[in-house]
C-alpha cells in the first residue's frame, strides 16, 4: 500500500490578485491554480509514495505586486506561504515545513517570486519519512 493522503494549506497574499501556481506530482500536473479568490488555499489529494511535488509559481510582477509605504513597510504583497502539510492526517511541525520545502534553491516556506518550489517525499514509507524529520507529535495537554 503506497497511497497516501496529502493535505497542504497555504496562506495566499493578495496584491493585484493572487499568485498562480501549477502543482506537479511526479511531473504530472494535478492542480492549475489560476482563479483562487481566498486567503487560504487548501489542496487535498491522494498520491503514490514516494514522490516529488513541484509548485511552479507565476503571476507575480515584482514591480507592481508588492505595495510599500514611504517607510518601506509592506502594505500588500502577492505570495504563497506554506502553513500546513499533513501526510495521512499527521501534520508536520512548523520547523519541519522549512526542512522539506525548497524554494528557488533555498529552504523557504514563504514563496513570493515566480520561481519553483519542490517538496520531496522520500523514504520507503510516510512513517520513516516523518521519523527521519524528527516529527514528534505531543498529544498531551496539560492536566
Amino acid at each position: 500500500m503506497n497511497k497516501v493522503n496529502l493535505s497542504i494549506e497555504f496562506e495566499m497574499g493578495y496584491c493585484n490578485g493572487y499568485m498562480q501556481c501549477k502543482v506537479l506530482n511526479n511531473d504530472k500536473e494535478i492542480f492549475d491554480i489560476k482563479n483562487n479568490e481566498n486567503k487560504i488555499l487548501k489542496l487535498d489529494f491522494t498520491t503514490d509514495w514516494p514522490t516529488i511535488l513541484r509548485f511552479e509559481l507565476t503571476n507575480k510582477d515584482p514591480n507592481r505586486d508588492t505595495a510599500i509605504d514611504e517607510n518601506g513597510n509592506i502594505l500588500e504583497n502577492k505570495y504563497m506561504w506554506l502553513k500546513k502539510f499533513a501526510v495521512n492526517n499527521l501534520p508536520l511541525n512548523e520547523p519541519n515545513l522549512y526542512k522539506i520545502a525548497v524554494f528557488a534553491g533555498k529552504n523557504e516556506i514563504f514563496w513570493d517570486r515566480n520561481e519553483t518550489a519542490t517538496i520531496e517525499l522520500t523514504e520507503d514509507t510516510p512513517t520513516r519519512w516523518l521519523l527521519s524529520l524528527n516529527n514528534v507529535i505531543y498529544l498531551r495537554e496539560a492536566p
Partner: protein
Amino acid sequence: MSVDILFSSTPWIDGTPCLAPAILKSVVEHNGFSAKTIDLAAYVYQCAQNHPNGNQIQKFCQQQYINFDLGADKIIADLIEDCTEKILAHNPKILGFSMLSQESQFFTMWLSYHIKHVAPDIKIIIGGSGVKNFIAGSNIFYAQELRNLGIIDDFIMGDGEHAMVEYLLNNREFNGINTPTWAQIGNLDDFPFPNFDDYNFDWYNIKSIPVCDSRGCVRKCEFCDIIKHWTSYKYRSGNSVFQEILHQIDKHNIYNFSFYNSLTNGNMKQFEIILDLICDYNQGKVRTKQISWDGYFIVRDQLRHPERLWKKLQKNNAHLLLGVESVVEHVRIGLGKNFKNDAIDYHLEMAKKYNVKVSLLMIVGYPTETKADFEFTKKWFVERKRYAPYIKNVIATLAAILPGTELEKNLANYGVVRDEGTIPIMWQNEEANISESYRYEYLLSFRSLLEQNGFFVSVDDTTLQEVT
C-alpha cells in the same frame, strides 16, 4: 484466515506479561468471536534488550526522543514495521491496543499510524489506563485527537470486558466507548479465566502469569489516583482465583504468579482462602512445582496479621510489596495509611522470621514531610539495616501530585505551590523551604545511604529522566 480481533499490548512495559489482552481474548471468545493476542510490549522489550542501542527504543517509547547520531529513527522505523508484520500475520479485522500507562502513548500512536497506512481497512481501537494522560484525570485529549486524526477508529475508557463485546456487536452507544464516562464492573467472577494461549513466555525474563483478583482499593490514600478510577473495591472469591491459578498451571506449566491489583489483602477472608488453598497445594511438592506469587500488601497491626498468617505466606512463597510510603508516622497516617511504625517493624520481623520476601514501596519527599522528616527517614533505615538481607527491594519514587487526587486538592493546606501544567513531580513546599532540586538531591542521598547499609534500592528510571 482472518480473526475478528487481535488484542495487543503496546510498549513501554518492562518485560512482564500484560494481562489485558488475555482477559479480553477469553471474554470475546466466550461471546462467540474469534480472537488472537500478542504481547507486543514484551516483544519490544526483548528487542530493546537484544539491540546494541536498545535504550534508544525505550527512550522513544517513553519520551518520543530520537537520537539521530545513533540512527534511532531507523531503529524505531524497523521496529514499527516488524511489529506491523507480526500483527498483520494474524489478518485481523479489528486491532485492539491495550495501553497500560501513558508510557504506551507514543509507540501506540506511531504504530497505529503505520498500520493505517499499510492496512487501512483494519479498524483500530485503543483502551486501558494509558488512553488517558492520568488515570484519574478527566482529560481524554490523546484518545480524542488520535481519533480526530483518523489514526485510530475508536477508544474504550475503563473496564473493557463488557465494552469490548458490545463494540464487536456494533453497539457504539455503550457507556465507555468513545466517552469519558464508563461503568465499573460489578462482579469480577462473572468472566472466564484469561487466555494466554498465544503468549510466548520465552519473551519474559521471569516467567510469571498475571492474575487479577481485585480492582480498586479498601483505603483512600490522598495521593492515589487508582481509587478515583475504580471508585469501589471489587474482589473475586478466593476459590475462583485459586481455580484460575490451577488452570494456568495446567495450561502453561508455570507456577509463579503476579497479582495485578492495588492490594492482595483487601478482603482478608478471601485472601486467607487463597492462602490456605495454596498451602495445601504446595504441601509435599518440590519447590519448582510449588506455587509462588507476588502482590501488593497493605500493612496492618499485629492483631490483623497474626503470626499464623506469616506461616501461610511462607508456605505460599509470597513476595509482598508493602505500601509503606513514609516511615514518618504522622506523615503516613496523614496521607491515609493508618498504621503505626510498630506495625512496620512487626512486618519486617515476621518477614525475617519466616523468610517471606518483602519489598518496601516508598514515596520520597512527600509534600507534608519536612527536612527533619527526611533525616528521620534516613536514621530509621540505618537503625534497621539488620533487615536489609530480608528486604528484596526498597522501591523509591519521588512524590508526585496526580490530577484528580485528594492530594491535589490539599496542596494549599500544605504550603505547596507549582506551575500550571507542569509534570506531577515538579512542585515546591514554600513553607518547608523544599524545592524539586532539594528533593531530588535527597532522593540520591537516601539511595546512597541505604545502599551503604546493605539495602537494594531501585528508583524509577522515568523519575530520574524527568528530573534530570
